[in-house]
C-alpha cells in the first residue's frame, strides 16, 4: 500500500485569543501525517490535546503557522467542502431519542445529500458498508438510546466512516469505556486505518494501549514543545521516559511500557522456574520488594515443584505452597 501525505503541519501555534491577551497553549508544532496510519496524541489533562484537535478540525483558528490537508490550506476550505475531508468523533455525549443506528450513521452522509437530506440507494449502501466495517450490522435497527457506551462509540465511528473523508479525528474515543472495550475500539481504529487507508488521529489517556497500536505518537505537555515520532524511536532515545517520568512511574526500555514503580524497601533473589519466578517478582514488587534472578541478596526464594522455599542466610528455610501463603509467611 502506498502511503501519501495527507496532513502537513508547519510551525503551528495553537491557543486562544482573548480581548486583551493571547493565550498560547502550544507552539512550533511541525509534522506530517500519512494515509493508512494511526497517530495517537498523548498528554496529561490540561496539556491542550482538545485545543489541538479543535484547531486541526477547523473548529477554532490557529494562532500562527499552517495546516495543509490534502495539500490545501485548512482555512481555504468552505464548510461543506471540509465536511467531505475531515470527520470527527467527539467527547460530547449526544442525547438522542427515537433515532435508529442506521439513521444516525445516515446523518454522516449529510454533506452529500440534497436539500431535504434524503438518502439515495448509494448513500444507504455506504451506510451499510460503514456498519459492516465497524462490525455493528446487527445493531442497525436499534435505537441509539438503548446502546452501551462502547456500542455508541462504534456508531459514531461508523458515522465518521459514512462521511467518506480521508481524515478522521477522534477526541478521546476510549474515555468512559471499560478496559476490554478500550482495547476493542483502539484495535478497530488500527484495523480501519489499514483497511481504508485513512489518516486516523486520536487523543487518548490510555498510554499503554496507545504505545502498542500507534504508528506515530505525538507527546504533549504543558510548557513544552510537542514531540512527534514513531513509538519505538521515542522509546530508544529516552523521550518517552522523560515525558511521563514522575514519582511512582517507571518506564521499561525492554517492553517500551510504563510500570507502577513503588519505592523498594528490600531486595530478594529468585531462583527456579521462570514463570513462577515472574509471578513471585510481580507479587513482591506490589508489596515494595524488588525481586529478580539477577539481584544480589541474602534472602533467596526458590520456586520449585513443591512450592516456594524461602531461605535467609543461615536461618532454616520456610516453605509456602501458594504465592498468597508466601506473602503471609514473609510477614507482608
Amino acid at each position: 500500500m502506498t502511503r501519501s501525505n495527507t496532513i502537513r503541519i508547519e510551525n503551528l501555534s495553537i491557543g486562544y485569543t482573548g480581548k486583551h491577551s493571547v493565550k498560547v497553549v502550544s507552539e512550533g508544532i511541525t509534522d506530517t501525517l500519512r494515509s493508512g496510519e494511526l497517530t495517537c496524541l498523548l498528554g496529561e489533562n490540561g496539556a491542550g490535546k482538545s485545543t489541538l484537535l479543535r484547531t486541526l478540525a477547523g473548529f477554532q483558528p490557529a494562532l500562527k503557522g499552517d495546516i495543509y490537508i490534502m495539500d490545501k490550506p485548512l482555512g481555504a476550505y468552505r464548510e461543506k467542502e471540509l465536511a467531505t475531508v475531515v470527520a470527527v468523533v467527539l467527547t460530547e455525549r449526544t442525547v438522542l431519542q427515537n433515532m435508529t443506528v442506521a439513521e444516525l450513521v445516515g446523518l454522516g452522509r449529510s454533506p452529500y445529500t440534497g436539500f431535504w437530506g434524503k438518502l439515495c440507494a448509494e448513500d444507504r449502501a455506504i451506510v451499510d458498508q460503514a456498519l459492516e466495517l465497524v462490525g455493528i450490522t446487527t445493531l442497525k435497527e436499534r435505537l441509539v438510546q438503548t446502546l452501551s457506551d462502547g456500542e455508541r462509540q462504534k456508531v459514531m465511528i461508523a458515522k465518521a466512516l459514512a462521511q467518506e473523508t480521508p481524515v478522521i479525528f477522534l477526541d478521546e474515543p476510549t474515555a468512559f469505556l471499560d478496559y476490554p472495550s478500550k482495547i476493542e475500539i483502539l484495535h478497530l481504529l488500527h484495523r480501519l486505518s489499514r483497511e481504508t487507508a485513512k489518516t486516523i488521529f486520536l487523543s487518548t489517556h490510555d498510554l499503554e494501549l496507545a504505545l502498542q497500536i500507534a504508528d506515530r505518537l505525538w507527546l504533549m505537555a504543558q510548557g513544552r514543545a510537542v514531540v512527534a515520532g514513531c513509538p519505538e524511536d521515542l522509546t530508544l532515545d529516552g523521550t518517552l521516559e522523560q515525558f511521563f517520568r514522575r514519582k511512582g512511574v517507571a518506564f521499561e526500555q525492554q517492553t517500551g511500557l510504563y510500570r507502577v514503580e513503588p519505592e523498594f524497601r528490600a531486595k530478594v533473589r529468585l531462583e527456579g522456574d521462570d514463570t513462577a519466578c515472574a509471578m513471585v517478582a510481580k507479587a513482591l514488587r506490589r508489596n515494595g520488594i524488588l525481586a529478580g534472578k539477577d539481584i544480589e541478596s541474602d534472602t533467596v526464594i526458590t520456586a520449585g515443584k513443591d512450592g516456594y522455599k524461602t531461605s535467609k542466610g543461615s536461618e532454616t528455610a520456610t516453605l509456602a505452597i501458594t504465592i498468597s501463603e508466601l506473602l503471609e509467611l514473609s510477614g507482608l
Partner: protein
Amino acid sequence: MILTAVSVLLLFFLNLLVGSVAIPAASTWKILTGATGVDPIWQNIILKSRLPQAFTALMAGAGLSVAGLQMQTVFRNPLAGPSVLGVSSGASLGVAFVVLLSGRLAGVALSSIGYMGEVAMTVAAIIGSLAVMLLIVYVSQKVKGNVTLLIIGVMIGYVATAIIGVLKFFSAEEDVRAYVVWGLGSFARVSGGQVTTFVIIMAVLLPLALLLVKTLNLLLLGDGYARNLGLNVRRARMAVIASAGVLVAIVTAYCGPITFLGLAVPHLCRGIFRTSDHRTLMPASMLAGASLALLCNLIARMPGFEGALPVNSVTALIGAPVVAVVLFKRRKEESAE
C-alpha cells in the same frame, strides 16, 4: 400521517357544525357550497363566526406546534416551548402598552373603541414580539452556549411581565379587564378581514418553516458534529430561532398567548411516530397541532359553555392528559422491550 390529516378535516367540519345555535349538517354544507335558500342568520353564523374561528384555530395550532418543535430541537431541551424566549411576553408587553397606557395618556380607554382598538392591539402585539425576537437573534450571535441564550430569553420574559405589572397598577379597571381578556387567549377574537390576513401570513410562514428540516436533523447531533457535517451552526441557530419567533409573534398577536400546545404537540408526535427525524416530525406537528387546536376550540364552544371557556384552560385540560397517556404508554413499551 394520513390519519392525522383526516382528523384535521373531520375536526374542522365538526367546528363548523357544533355551536350554541344548532344548524343541521345539510344546511351547513349548503352554506359552504354557496347554495341559496338558507336562513341568512345561519349563513352569518357559519361564514362570519364559525369558519373564521376554525381557520384561526387550524393555523394557530399548526404554527405554535412547529415553533415548539424548533425550539426544543435548537435548545436540545424537552421543556422548551414557543414561549421560552420571551417572544409571547413581548407580544403581551406590546398589547399592554396599547391597552393600558392609551387610556392614561389620550384620555380614551382603548378597550372601548371597538374595531380600531382590535387592530391596534394586533399591531402592538406584532411589534412587541418581533422586537423581542430581534433582540434574541442579536443575542444569539453574541453568546455561544444554548443554555445562556435560554436563560436570557427567560429573563426577557420576566422583565416584560414586570413592566406589565407596573402598567396594570397605574391603569383604569376596565382597561386591565380588557387586557386580562386578551391574555386568556382565544381563536374567536380574530374577526372578518383580519382572519384572511392571518391565514395568508401563516400559509406563507408554515411552508418556510419546513425548509429547515435538514438543519434541524443536524442540530440534533449537537453543535460539534453538526458543524463537522458542514452546517454553519450559528447561522442555522439564528434561522431556526427567527422562524419560530415570527410564527409565535404572529399567532400571539392574533389569538393572544396560547399556552401548552407548542410544548406538548412535539412530544405527542415523537411518541406517536417514534422518530426524531424532522422530515416526519415537522408535517406531523403541523397536523397534530391543528387537530388539537380544533379539538380544544370545539370543546370550548360546546353548547352550554357558550364560548365562556377560555381556550388556554381547555388546551391544558385536554392536552395534558393526552400527552401524559402517550408518554406513559411509550415508557411502558420501552421497558418491556
